[in-house]
């Protein structure tokens, strides 16, 4: 074949190039491998060693399962994850169907809105729900004033409901995107054929649509399950002390009880579970590529058939939009509002719009030596985020480059799954690994401020690689040739083709790394030094303090964080080149 000739030539050219650069190639793929080895496998290996140390092989597991309390934690982790997943699907599936099959005003807005919570730091979401439904939130204070109540009417924070609602809030977008997008591209002809053969609408769904969307459905459910299973901030803050999952218990055992062996055993159990779930997930994603007739979404959507249907559906969608928007709007407005009847109110402020909470960001309310002002926390976070961007790009670029070269070398074939591993590892476990492994020689980084950017880089790396590698891969030799034929010399090819194509992906990756670092809570809570809290860590501290001003500070900080991460993600959506990029 003509094309075959050509590709054979390209292949041989590339091969020559690779051979010439073999040394460089090996060196560059070694960078990410060494990084993963030192800061992922070594810490996790240390957890493994610690949990088996001196106690015998199965001892830690026996211990965990012998303790009624720890056993109940494992049980609750599975229970809350299962229930959250089911509820998320119950909300997400009808919405996914409507988004896939109908045309209505505000459709793209709803889709974008549903994605906002997903990118927000857990602390922001927790603060947002607190600002709306908490004891000092809009609804409670409003109702108290309206009905002249002495006590808080709605008990939301520190309930199981709060955990479930926050999880639905977070993860519905996964169902919308994975299932909705797949469903939307499924040709309605298939369903019409079934109807034509005598199936009613339920039978059509049961025998035709459901089997076709089931891989997407299973993948979405599993991904939601993984996120719920390892959820940290939501459980810690909205669940409160009465609820403990593996993730929060690892934190508690480490930070409060200093019982590292028990924490390590719990981390190991969690690691096994998440790795198994991640493996199943990647398997399912692979099956998603099953050939079904897919169409461009525009050709499929239709208007509603009747007025009644239209009203019912619009009501459901409006409720959904309110569900996504209310906590965020509540947070932003609450951060600039002083209300009557705020408990422990200090100062002389009158009720109304106020920027006092923002003005007070430079104040330390407690005078504790371990206490930093919000301004200091912002500075710390910015320094960490900047370092994370640098580290993530310094490691992500060579890694993506090695991946984009396709599998010429064993090294790069190995790299692909390895780079995705941190995605399936909980942040708290990573933090524990750092504490266990990097606190003593040979790698003693205990006092080093680099520890946090290193942890953030691990979390960010899969995302960075996922946006960089496709961009690098998209520079097909054809594009170089096309530019050369049109008169572009080598320097101009670099300037007009390579830089613009990778440039956007580079900015996207940098924003990803920045947003992840600035919002990361789980690993940071484990390893941050008390005198240098990051923004999320400080929000956590402030939220658990009494006092209207501390509460206001927490909300103001959360609002800033929400705007920064939300804005970053918005910029990324805009920058993303069509066709390029993977979920």
């Amino acid at each position, binding site marked *: 074949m003509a*094309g075959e000739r050509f590709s054979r030539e390209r292949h041989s050219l590339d091969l020559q190039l690779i051979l010439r650069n073999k040394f460089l190639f090996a060196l560059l793929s070694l960078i990410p491998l060494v990084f993963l080895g030192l800061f992922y496998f070594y810490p996790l290996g240390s957890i493994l060693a610690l949990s088996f140390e001196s106690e015998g092989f199965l001892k830690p597991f026996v211990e965990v399962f012998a303790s009624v309390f720890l056993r109940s934690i494992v049980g609750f982790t599975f229970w809350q994850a299962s229930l959250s997943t089911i509820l998320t699907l119950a909300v997400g599936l009808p919405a996914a169907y409507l988004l896939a099959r109908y045309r209505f005003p505000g459709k793209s807005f709803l889709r974008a809105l549903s994605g906002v919570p997903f990118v927000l730091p857990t602390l922001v979401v927790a603060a947002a729900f607190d600002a709306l439904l908490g004891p000092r939130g809009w609804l409670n204070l409003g109702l108290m004033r309206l009905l002249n109540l002495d006590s808080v009417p709605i008990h939301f924070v520190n309930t199981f409901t709060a955990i479930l609602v926050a999880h639905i809030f977070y993860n519905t977008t996964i169902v919308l995107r994975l299932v909705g997008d797949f469903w939307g591209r499924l040709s309605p002809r298939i369903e019409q054929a079934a109807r034509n053969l005598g199936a009613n609408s339920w039978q059509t769904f049961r025998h035709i649509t459901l089997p076709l969307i089931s891989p997407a459905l299973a993948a979405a459910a599993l991904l939601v399950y993984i996120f719920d299973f390892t959820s940290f901030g939501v459980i810690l803050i909205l669940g409160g002390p009465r609820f403990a999952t593996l993730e929060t218990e690892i934190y508690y055992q480490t930070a409060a009880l200093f019982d590292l062996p028990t924490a390590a055993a719990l981390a190991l159990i969690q690691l096994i579970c998440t790795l198994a779930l991640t493996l199943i997930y990647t398997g399912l994603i692979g099956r998603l590529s099953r050939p079904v007739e897919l169409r461009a979404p525009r050709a499929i959507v239709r208007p509603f058939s009747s007025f009644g249907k239209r009203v019912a559906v619009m009501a459901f969608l409006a409720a959904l939009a309110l569900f996504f928007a209310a906590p965020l709007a509540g947070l932003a407005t609450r951060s600039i509002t002083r209300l009557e009847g705020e408990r422990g109110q200090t100062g002389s402020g009158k009720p109304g719009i106020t920027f006092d909470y923002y003005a007070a960001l430079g104040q330390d309310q407690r005078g504790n030596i371990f206490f930093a002002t919000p301004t200091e926390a912002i500075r710390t976070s910015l320094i960490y985020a900047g370092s994370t961007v640098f580290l993530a790009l310094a490691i992500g670029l060579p890694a993506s480059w090695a991946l984009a070269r396709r599998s010429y070398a064993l090294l790069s074939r190995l790299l692909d799954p390895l780079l995705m591993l941190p995605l399936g590892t909980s942040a708290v476990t990573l933090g524990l690994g750092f504490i266990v492994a990097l606190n003593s020689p040979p790698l003693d980084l205990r006092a080093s401020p680099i520890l946090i950017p290193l942890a953030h880089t691990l979390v960010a790396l899969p995302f960075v690689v996922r946006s960089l590698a496709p961009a690098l891969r998209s520079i097909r030799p054809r*594009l170089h040739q096309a530019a050369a*034929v049109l*008169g572009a010399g080598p320097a101009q090819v670099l300037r*007009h083709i390579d830089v613009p194509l990778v440039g956007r992906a580079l900015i996207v990756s940098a924003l990803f790394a920045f947003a992840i670092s600035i919002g990361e809570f789980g690993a940071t809570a484990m390893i941050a030094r008390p005198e240098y809290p990051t923004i999320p860590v400080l929000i956590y501290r402030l939220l658990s303090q009494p006092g209207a001003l501390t509460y206001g500070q927490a909300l103001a900080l959360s609002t800033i964080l929400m705007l920064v991460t939300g804005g970053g993600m918005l910029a990324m959506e805009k920058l993303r080149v069509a066709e390029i990029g993977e979920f």
Partner: protein
Amino acid sequence: MLELRHVTKSFDGQRALSDVSFRAKTGEITVLLGPSGSGKSTLLNIVAGLAVPERGQVLWNEKDISSLPVHRRGFGLMFQDYALFPHRDVFGNIAFGLQMARQSSVRITKRVREVLSLVGLSNEFEHREVSSLSGGEQQRVALARALAPQPRLSMLDEPLGSLDRALRTRLLDDLSTILRKAGQTTLYVTHDQEEAYAIANRIVLLRAGHVEQVAAPEFLYRHPTSEFVARFLGLENLMPATAVRSGRQVWLKTPIGNLPAPNRIANGELVILLRPDAIHLDKRGSIQLKARLIKKRFRGRQLQARIEVKKTRLVLDLPSDVELPAIGKQIAISFDPKEALQVFPRG
């Protein structure tokens, strides 16, 4: 004028092109025609400067340009998969070559609009993302991009390859008009002989890396020089024959009987072509045979009849006003060997 002299190229020790020589005249459309794997795309890459031949030269107006780098050749190439730049819109793609030539932005805008209308796209397309275009629109943009810098030579690599049949027929007409209107010297690669007939001034027929025949379309159709060419052009009524000398006359032993050779040929195993349009239903020709009518098919201006002569099936292209007997009936046919027979060595 483009000229290739003895161009040879191998990949992994396998010969892709051997000793290819031909010329493409200025202002003409030269089609490189051949089945998959015959070396058409490799040849284009060599002319473009994307691949380097092991032996032989590429000449432009008698000057050897074999060592001129790609971007200095001033040749336009439209890729089979278009290779549009995904990060540039339609305008940005078409303007690229002009920008590389450092033309003023006023002239660039003017020229882009010019080629857009040449390929039949309105100005509204200028700011469309290339990923939002249909296959036919992408093809037009790719063509416009290749033509915009007014290349000395433009090369089109299977430009209609990935389109559906209806679109192909329409775009082929447009393409032919566009290239002729621009007086563009063109190398056009295709594996489809009908496409080649429709657009070519001259066809270079390639087979497994060498030039099999170079001719104008009509001439190629009337006078194929080998069994391969005849088969590739879709000519029917090919049959094996053995040449036997008897005195001064050479006879061809064929499945439909012994026929006198139309010209001086060597002994041995041969293939003959009995041209479908040179067989008559009367006794006009010197060779007369009895046949049985098997099938008739009305084809507008033509009537195609399938007949059987001594268990060999033949096709006849007849004028459509000819009266044919019923299917299964005997008919008499005749032809003149000099007019109707062509003889090729076998293989």
